[in-house]
């Protein structure tokens, strides 16, 4: 409004109106742009979802059908039974949950050491960066050979160990951030009362940074759920994950088995949808540090 200083009322009114129209146009443009953006980024999910519920008539129809005329869960049933989808879904769930818990268990004390005692200086930071640069293929070759001799291929344990360790640097980094925000005085008060370090960590710190821990847990769940290369190489029929299941449809199956293929995609992106809203605030940090790609 400072631009109105020193003008006549008529000019001022015209200038305000131009501002208002200008802003209105900008607003319309903004919301339109965002609407298009949302359609672009979320459209594919909508299409896959409707496809997974379509019957043959709707799938092969033209013009394309967006709302199926007789939606059914037949494809999901087929996926779960004939294609053993249920087993693989549970595998993914189990492996990711176990990795998530293990990563937390191992990372929390480490993060504590770094936050409280500046353990290792900035080594962890550089280590995280270096690990980010490492392509998964560089790690899987030796790990595969090692696992073969140890008999850890096609086992939950093998995959969980690998996922946990690969995820430690990221978990530690995030947890250090949370711990640094935590006031030391509360801990010291507990220790004066006779608590050991470990005790104070468990009994005092953990309950208060529990939300932070949950964030790390959910990120690690998603990262391990999404992971592909290690899963493809190291799993067999008992331990195959949802990501590997989808590859059975990449060979000429997209027209013949369209229903099950799209159903498997719907299930595969479920965690992302579930978790996106809860992790909003941490998304930038999480994605930047590689928190969602295994």
């Amino acid at each position: 409004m400072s631009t109105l200083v020193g003008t006549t009322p008529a000019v001022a009114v015209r200038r305000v109106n131009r501002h208002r129209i200008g802003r209105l146009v900008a607003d319309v443009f903004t919301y339109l742009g965002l609407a298009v953006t949302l359609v672009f980024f979320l459209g594919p999910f909508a299409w896959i979802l409707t496809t997974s519920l379509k019957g043959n008539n709707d799938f092969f129809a033209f013009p394309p059908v967006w709302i199926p005329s007789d939606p059914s869960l037949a494809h999901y049933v087929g996926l779960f039974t004939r294609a053993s989808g249920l087993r693989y879904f549970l595998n993914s769930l189990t492996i990711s949950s176990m990795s998530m818990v293990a990563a937390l268990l191992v990372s929390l004390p480490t993060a504590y050491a770094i936050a409280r005692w500046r353990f290792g200086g900035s080594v962890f930071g550089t280590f995280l960066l270096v690990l980010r640069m490492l392509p998964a293929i560089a790690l899987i070759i030796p790990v595969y050979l090692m696992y073969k001799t140890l008999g850890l291929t096609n086992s939950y344990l093998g995959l969980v160990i690998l996922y946990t360790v690969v995820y430690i640097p990221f978990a530690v980094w995030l947890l250090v951030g949370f711990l640094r925000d935590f006031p030391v005085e509360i801990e010291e008060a507990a220790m004066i009362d006779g608590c050991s370090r470990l005790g104070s960590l468990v009994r005092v710190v953990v309950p208060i940074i529990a939300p932070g821990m949950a964030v790390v847990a959910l990120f690690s769940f998603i990262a391990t759920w999404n992971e592909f290369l290690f899963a493809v190489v190291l799993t067999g029929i008992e331990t195959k994950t949802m990501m590997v299941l989808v590859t059975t449809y990449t060979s000429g199956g997209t027209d013949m088995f369209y229903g099950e293929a799209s159903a498997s995609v719907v299930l595969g992106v479920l965690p992302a949808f579930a978790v996106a809203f809860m992790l909003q605030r941490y998304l930038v940090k999480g994605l930047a540090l590689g928190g969602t790609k295994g």
Partner: protein
Amino acid sequence: MRQLRFLAVLLVLIAVVAAGVMPGQAPAQGAKPYEGTTIRAVVNAEYVKYSLSLVEKDLYDKLGIKLDVEVIPLDAFVPKTLLEFNSGSSPWDLIMFGPSNMPDYGRHFEPLEAWTQKLKLDFQLDDIADVYKKLMLRHNGKLVSMPYDGDVHMLFWNKVAYERPDNKKKFKDKYKYDLQPPKTWKQWDDASEFFHGWGWDGTDNKLFGAGASYKPSGSGYSYHWWRSRFFSYGGQYFDADMKPLINTAPALRALEEMVRTMPYYPPGVLLFESEEPKTMLVKGEIPLLYSWTSTGKRVGDARESVIVGKAGFGLVPGAEIDGKIIHRPAITPGRAMAVSKYSKKIEPTMKVLEFISLPDQSLKIVMDPKTIMDPWRVTHFRSEKFRKAFPGAPEYLDAIEKSFPLVVPDPVIPGADEYQRKLSFEITEALAKRKPAKEALDSAAREWDKITDRRGRDKQKAAWGEKMAEMKAIGIEYHPDWAAKAK
């Protein structure tokens, strides 16, 4: 933040519960001979798993055995399975494999003879078509596997395209000979050029000239397609000294023709695997296709095909040399089933193998269009049921049998899969115009030499020597002069 904590705890609980529930179910007790046994099979596609599901119930009813089928996608199949076997173990009992890879797989299979005697098994070997008997059963002379899917290439054409008087006239005017299903490659190329880009079915649609599969995935589709031309122009894989012959004149002519005619094929052909061109054929979008015999079943399946009763079946085109036409349909040769010698359940697996190979059970499998498994028993070809399955079925089955004496096999030596893949990759590179044809073939020949060296040149030479002799016995050998004179 509460929800986060709750969700995290929930996931942990699920993990614990799932981990506890996952390991096995207690086997049931009963009166069937192998009640409670589960046999693990490994296959390379959903279709195959589906095909096994057709016989699962009868299998269980008769023997009490359940099948646990793992699908390893096509591209990872050979590497993953061989990796397991080479380390001396396998999590599977029943193995599906491609018989061209027998040199690499054979030593991991349990020979069948001893068990045939012990369990009084009857595999009815006399009922197997000769050409498959030769290629799918033995390793180093020992019987180790049974056929499951017999695969040769044959010609399919759309009768509507070929019988419309309008089309016939236009073709004769342009090419000066009668429109007929192609017998030579020149006729095939002319036809694909002629039919491309307009409605040869009498409609306004823009249709395509011909179909093929050019993706180098699996064992290399484009290589299979190129192979028929290559051999009909007098090609051969190696000479007696293990020098690759895949960049000689026959090879070049074959590839250059394929590159030149690329515009007449559907745009996505470079990524087509087995099923895409078949779909186009049965939907009436291409008039010509040579591909696996399973195509015929889909042609006759009224649920998806619009050309039921309107399709022709014949021999893959060849090359006219000195007045005779040399046909060389590829035999790929399908799939076979064997028993892993590392299995802890060899006896029940043998019974399963016998069961799924029974004439009536295997007929079920090879008749169903969704399985894409093909007839391999003589009784399959003569079966009244099959011959009545759809209009044209008798012609279809007869055409397959006519191809048998002329087929050209893969290079069945150690490393077969790798040789094929590398060659197919280069072929597709040329088709994609990323490299000139000559450069691609030279590159492939270099890769083949590298493979031969890695596997041991002398070993490979010996193995190839045998195969070359076998191929010579059925009339296949290298003719450097054919490429120039073929019409």
